[in-house]
């Protein structure tokens, strides 16, 4: 089966900066794919390479089997939802949504009908007459989505689509985007620096750092079985354990990771385990996050709310199941 998007050794250099560095990537048709990474990690440049706003310095990009180098954005059947939406301020909502059809010379009645349908799809029917300036952030986001979807793209690119929305709205839009993608069956590729968003929405996640892909896998893979210290640390802030520590529990001299929720904390009197000191407690609602210091090794634990806890500064012992200790590929 041909990939929706495929990168072969793709690099994009800006002067001496390697924004994207020899990336290989295959995204399946109909997949909901997330590019996750800190800012400056190359994820947005990858998105712009697919959209055609950037050209690769070297390597090859294909979209549904067709070579895309040198093809301008307006000849790619790929549409983008921009981070700040990029709605045309001089056009009303309906003309914004119909823009792609207008430049393809679709008749006025027909394109307005299609735009109306697209607006219904994003649950904004009847908003066509308004100007983008009169809409809230969430509404603008939906208009940007409708404007992209009305063109029936083969691939939809979303650049930090939910970054500018407040928490409640973001959670709603996450669910909506996911169900929309299921209904339409279009390949969605979205860029985010929010690991929670990537894990909850995507079928597969690529974790970027320094222009390279650190790991590609299902959210569960990425979360449970990080391959490198960077992935363990960036995705859900796992505890990264040094090889010496890991050797004591697994017999192997390798870097390890341990999820904060896998650590149990008890008072120092209650038996054996890793001796540590409780540094501080952070109440997070459903859970409480504990900062611990095990003889210089900084660890975090997550315990359910309501657990009886020692006071800050007290000595504690930490226990965990051996099978929760994940060994990483990264050499020691």
């Amino acid at each position, binding site marked *: 089966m041909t990939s929706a998007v495929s990168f072969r050794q793709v690099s994009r250099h800006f002067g001496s900066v390697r924004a994207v560095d020899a990336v290989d990537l295959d995204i399946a048709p109909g997949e909901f794919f997330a590019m996750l990474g800190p800012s400056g990690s190359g994820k947005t440049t990858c998105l712009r390479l697919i959209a055609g*706003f950037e050209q690769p310095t070297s390597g090859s990009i294909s979209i549904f089997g067709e070579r895309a180098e040198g093809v301008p*954005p*307006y000849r790619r059947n790929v549409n*983008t939802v921009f981070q700040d939406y990029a709605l045309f301020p*001089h056009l009303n909502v309906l003309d914004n949504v119909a823009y*792609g059809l207008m*430049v393809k010379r679709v008749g006025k009645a027909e394109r307005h009908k299609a735009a109306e349908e697209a607006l219904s799809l994003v649950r904004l029917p009847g908003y066509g007459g308004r100007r983008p300036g009169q809409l809230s952030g969430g509404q603008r986001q939906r208009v940007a989505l409708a404007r992209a979807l009305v*063109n029936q793209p083969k691939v939809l690119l979303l650049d930090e689509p939910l970054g500018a929305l407040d928490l409640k709205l973001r959670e709603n839009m996450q669910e909506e985007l996911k169900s929309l993608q299921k209904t339409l069956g279009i390949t969605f590729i979205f860029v985010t620096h929010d690991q929670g968003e990537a894990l909850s929405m995507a079928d597969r996640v690529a974790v970027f750092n320094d222009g390279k892909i650190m790991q590609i896998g299902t959210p569960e893979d990425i979360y449970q079985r990080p391959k490198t210290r960077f992935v363990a640390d960036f995705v859900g802030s796992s505890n990264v354990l040094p090889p010496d520590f890991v050797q004591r529990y697994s017999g192997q001299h390798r870097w390890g990771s341990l999820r904060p929720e896998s650590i149990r904390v008890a008072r120092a009197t209650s038996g054996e385990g890793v001796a540590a000191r409780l540094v501080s407690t952070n109440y997070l609602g459903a859970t409480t996050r504990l900062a611990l210091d095990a003889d210089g090794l900084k660890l975090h634990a997550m315990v359910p709310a309501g657990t009886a806890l020692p006071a800050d500064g007290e000595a504690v012992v930490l226990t965990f199941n051996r099978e929760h200790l994940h060994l990483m590929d990264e050499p020691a």
Partner: protein
Amino acid sequence: MTIAALDTNTTPAILPGSGGMRGTLSDLFWRRPQLLLLLMLLPPVLWLGVVYIGSLFALLAQSFFSIDEFSGLINREFTLKTYGDLFQPANLDIILRTVTMAAIVTLASAIVAFPIAYYAARYARGRWKALFYLGVMLPLWSSYLVKIYAWKLILAKEGILTWLLAKLNLLWLLDAWLSLPVVGGNSLSVSFTGTFIVFVYVWLPFMILPVQAALERVPGNLVEASSDLGASPGQTFRNVLFPLALPGIVAGSIFTFSLTLGDYIIPQIIGTSRLFIGQAVYSQQGTAGNIPLAAAFTVVPIVIMGFYLWGAKRMGAFDAL
């Protein structure tokens, strides 16, 4: 642990006033911001209202007087006779010639200015941007008259342009152009073409700067979004860039159009002996001593600009403001 420098126990919650005249005034203006606004606006409003607009109205009032053709004295009674004189064929000719020139100069300025403004707004950074501003503004620093006489030399029959075209074996092109009616003449410096070239040169900065400011405010990602949605560069220009730059173009055209309508020096030095409105005003109030007709002539550009702005507003030129 307390840090002496950060000890908040000894600091007062309300600071004492700085005292004196300045302190009292600052506090007063903070409490009554309208007072400050009034004080700041009073001098310019007085200047604009009394000296500037007032004298303009005094001039316009003159246009409703008439001149006694025998004595040459001004008859200070309300009449529309002077406006009637405006519609004599010779005077209508002047008006039509000036408006046509102003329109063509404006159009040409917009066409020349747009790419320059676009480059400056989208691509020029740092040093290149400074160079752009310098290049655009530099001609404004030198004397207007010097520039016009310089152009007279450039465009003269023995001038550098003729010489250059002769070297390039393109003199036939110039001769063909100069043999055309209306735009032609003995040489470029005594033709309407010459007047046009110098007008465009002199007013160009007034078009470039507002267009550049308008383009500067167009976010770059709108161009990307348009391209992403399938618009070719030409379509992006027509559907996104041009509509968003239109307020700037209109602002620039207000300058180029009204400045051309009123100018009396350029057509006098470069061009034919036929008059433009500015020259008509100059000669009517000077040698002819016909202040009422001169005043009536000055009303013409004001009325034309009024219609121009009204038309521009109706076309939606200010919608994106």
